[in-house]
């Protein structure tokens, strides 16, 4: 079965530090992978996605993510972190690409990031 795991429910960083949020997935075919961000009281916003090609993808707000097939990971990175990056981050897998035209995302549990001054 397809699944996404974000093992860190909460991460706290000092402003200026480097952030890396972990995401691992389980999927038998080539994955389409996404990161979305949810700021407090707001809806989810798209950050970046990996479809194919370069394993390091850049997104909005200075974020990037690295796809590693070897260990089925898609970790989100940013340096330096800013207090405004405090939010909940969701990793997602788009399944059934070959058989369906829909974006049937499977989401991880989310990681709440706090960046403190």
């Amino acid at each position, binding site marked *: 079965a397809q699944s996404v795991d974000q093992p860190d429910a909460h991460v706290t960083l000092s402003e200026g530090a480097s952030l890396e949020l972990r995401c691992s997935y389980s999927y038998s075919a080539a994955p*389409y992978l*996404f990161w979305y961000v949810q700021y407090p009281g707001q809806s989810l916003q*798209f950050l970046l*996605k990996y479809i194919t090609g370069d394993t390091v993808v850049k997104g909005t707000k200075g974020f990037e993510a690295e796809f590693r097939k070897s260990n089925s990971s898609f970790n989100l990175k940013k340096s330096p972190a800013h207090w405004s990056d405090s939010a909940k981050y969701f990793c*997602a897998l*788009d399944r059934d690409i070959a058989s369906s035209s*829909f*974006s*049937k995302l499977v989401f991880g549990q989310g990681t709440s990031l706090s960046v403190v001054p």
Partner: protein
Amino acid sequence: EAAVTQSPRNKVTVTGGNVTLSCRQTNSHNYMYWYRQDTGHGLRLIHYSYGAGNLQIGDVPDGYKATRTTQEDFFLLLELASPSQTSLYFCASSETGGGNTLYFGAGTRLSVL
């Protein structure tokens, strides 16, 4: 930027009550989705649709019906609400299907007492 509007933003009902959550998108997207967000589960897909009259069953459909009346409007119906349906509900749309960005509404917080 795609616009997805959900209403109401907050709803309280009692067990056994009837609830309709509304979603409208104004960017002519064909694909629309209903998700629920619960702590520890992330977002889970309830129902989805491609165009008016089309309905597909998601991963957690029990207790929910959906109806897509127009390309713009997608409704989620809870005909006999239960406390287990207390959740934050998000509607989303996308221009095309697989691999494309989803645009989410602001969410509806539903409490079933």
